């Protein structure tokens, strides 16, 4: 049951072979057994969770069923869910009980899905290893001394260890795709604006985008059908017609289902910095795509290397503004001792934020301060356009772009935590799609040996043009029809 697809679970629930309460309890039991070690969840509330499961069973009995009715989903702790502790991985919000629901929570509730709990994450989604969380690191289910990636590390570990049927994440610079690669599952960052940011705690508003994290492309498509759609409460939500993201999945039975698909390989994604063993896995996956009928096209994204410097100006600049709301006045941490208002601000923020968040606020404040704005912020916005234009040129030659999602397999906990710049390079292949606003996904493509001989998952990244998620999901789905990497689960967690 824990390895079943969302479609299979939906069918079992509708046929009343299992109840939502039984299914939910199965995952709650697994969480109780494994979570104390893995630390994928920050907040659990069995009472609330099981009440939703009971309501789902009643709904199924009444014949009022949607595809995810009764299915337990883990929610990244960046999403406000009414009555739930919502911390964003920070001491600042350790006691915050969300007074309203994020748009996607409303959507999952309307679909009859069950909220299994709130998952661990890097503090305010700033990190690539989940090590900046106030609530402690998360273990990679494939190798417990390694990180799951970040910032959606708790959702990643929960999906990989089968501590949920599927999960949500957010991706500002790679926070869905890099953990999907490091933990061996399927994750999609949609086109910017496809999923409402209402009730999603802001990091860098022009880059933040929520998306599904699940075992397969089909599961992600079903999740997208719930998550995506116009919401007037998010001023950047795109007013487009509701689409069915599964529409391309079931209509190709021929031997070469991807005949004619043009796959672009950017040379910059296969150059220095890419682990050789990871590169071999990606090349094998590309070969499989040729078997499926795809045509390979060499392309170039010449400004890829600039994406990290640009991101580390723009994201901290936006974060320094967004995080100014945490002042200890209306909610969040207030210092226990202070003299005057200024002292209260200074101490509350110094105590409530962790080291990486403070670093980014300071960088953001610096690049926006008088005298530096043109040299840093404006310059970064100009190069952002160059990066976006690289993709416009590339998509004249191909339908999708493929490459690695991360430059290496999962690294050891503690290895990069004191070297922010080394940590930032984890996102070299993912950040440029956020800057351009394009959709990107990572799918399991095999395993590579680490330096110390451990076999670890590798993710193939698929980048699509704007609003091309349905095609990307089918491109992933066809690969998953002829490979079984996405069905593998870590040993010892059966």
């Amino acid at each position, binding site marked *: 049951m824990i390895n079943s697809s969302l479609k299979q679970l939906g069918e079992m629930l509708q046929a009343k072979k299992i109840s939502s309460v039984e299914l939910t309890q199965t995952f709650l039991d697994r969480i109780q057994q494994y979570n104390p070690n893995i630390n994928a969840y920050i907040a659990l509330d069995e009472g609330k969770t099981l009440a939703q499961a009971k309501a789902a069973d009643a709904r199924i009995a009444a014949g009022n069923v949607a595809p995810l009715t009764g299915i337990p989903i883990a929610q990244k702790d960046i999403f406000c869910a009414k009555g739930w502790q919502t911390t964003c991985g920070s001491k600042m919000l350790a006691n915050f*009980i969300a007074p309203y629901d994020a748009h996607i929570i409303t959507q999952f509730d309307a679909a009859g899905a069950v909220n299994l709990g709130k998952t661990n994450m890097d503090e305010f989604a700033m990190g690539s290893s989940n090590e900046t969380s106030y609530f402690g690191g998360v273990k990679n289910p494939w190798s417990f001394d390694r990180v799951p990636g970040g910032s959606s590390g708790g959702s990643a570990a929960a999906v990989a260890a089968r501590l949920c049927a599927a999960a949500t994440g957010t991706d500002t610079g790679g926070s869905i795709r890099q953990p999907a690669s490091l933990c061996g599952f399927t994750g999609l960052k949609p086109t*910017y604006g496809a999923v409402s940011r209402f009730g999603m705690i802001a990091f860098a508003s022009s880059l933040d985008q929520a998306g599904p994290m699940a075992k397969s492309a089909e599961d992600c498509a079903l999740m997208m059908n719930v998550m995506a759609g116009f919401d007037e409460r998010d001023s950047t939500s795109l007013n487009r017609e509701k689409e069915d993201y599964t529409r391309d999945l079931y209509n190709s039975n021929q031997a070469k289902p991807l005949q004619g698909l043009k796959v672009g390989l950017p040379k910059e994604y296969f150059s220095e910095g890419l682990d050789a063993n990871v590169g071999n896995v990606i090349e094998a996956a590309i070969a499989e795509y040729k078997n499926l009928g795809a045509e390979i096209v060499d392309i170039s994204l010449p400004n890829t290397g600039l994406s990290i410097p640009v991101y580390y100006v723009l994201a901290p600049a936006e974060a320094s503004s967004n995080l100014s709301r945490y002042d200890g006045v209306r909610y969040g*941490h207030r210092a226990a001792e202070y003299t005057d208002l200024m002292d209260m601000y200074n101490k509350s923020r110094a105590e409530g934020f962790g080291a990486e968040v403070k*670093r980014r606020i*300071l960088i953001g404040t610096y690049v926006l301060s008088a005298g530096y704005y043109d040299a840093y912020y404006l310059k970064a916005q100009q*190069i952002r*356009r160059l990066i976006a234009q690289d993709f416009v040129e590339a998509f004249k030659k191909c339908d999708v772009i493929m490459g690695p999602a991360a430059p290496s397999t999962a690294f050891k906990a503690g290895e990069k935590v004191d070297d922010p710049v080394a940590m930032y390079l984890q996102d070299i292949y993912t950040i440029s799609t956020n800057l351009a606003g394009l959709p990107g996904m990572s799918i399991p493509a095999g395993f590579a040996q680490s330096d110390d001989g451990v076999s670890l998952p590798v993710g193939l990244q698929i980048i699509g043009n704007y609003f091309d998620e349905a095609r990307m999901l089918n491109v992933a789905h066809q690969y998953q029809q002829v490979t079984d990497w996405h069905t593998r689960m870590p040993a010892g967690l059966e």
Partner: protein
Amino acid sequence: MALSIEDIKKVAHLARIEVSESDAVATLTKLTGILSLIEQMQAVDTTGIEPMSHSQDLSQRLRDDIVTKTNLRDEFQKNAPLLGNGSTEQAVAGGLYLVPKVIE
């Protein structure tokens, strides 16, 4: 551009984050590393390139000028922090939030 301890203190003040002397020294090292990464941008000629603030070039939507939000003040105030300085009361009174006196 080399950062100094004074720069760190100035930026920390602007950001309203207290930093001790030892924090400032450690922060200087880390921020210097990050800024040298950012400096790579300066090699690019961006003359005449329109800055891109957003991936979708959309204008703001307009809506009717009617009240759309429900009043959740009481709900919101449940999340008010403790007053501090020895008090275990929440920093609210009469529907307002309490802060240290700012006007003499």
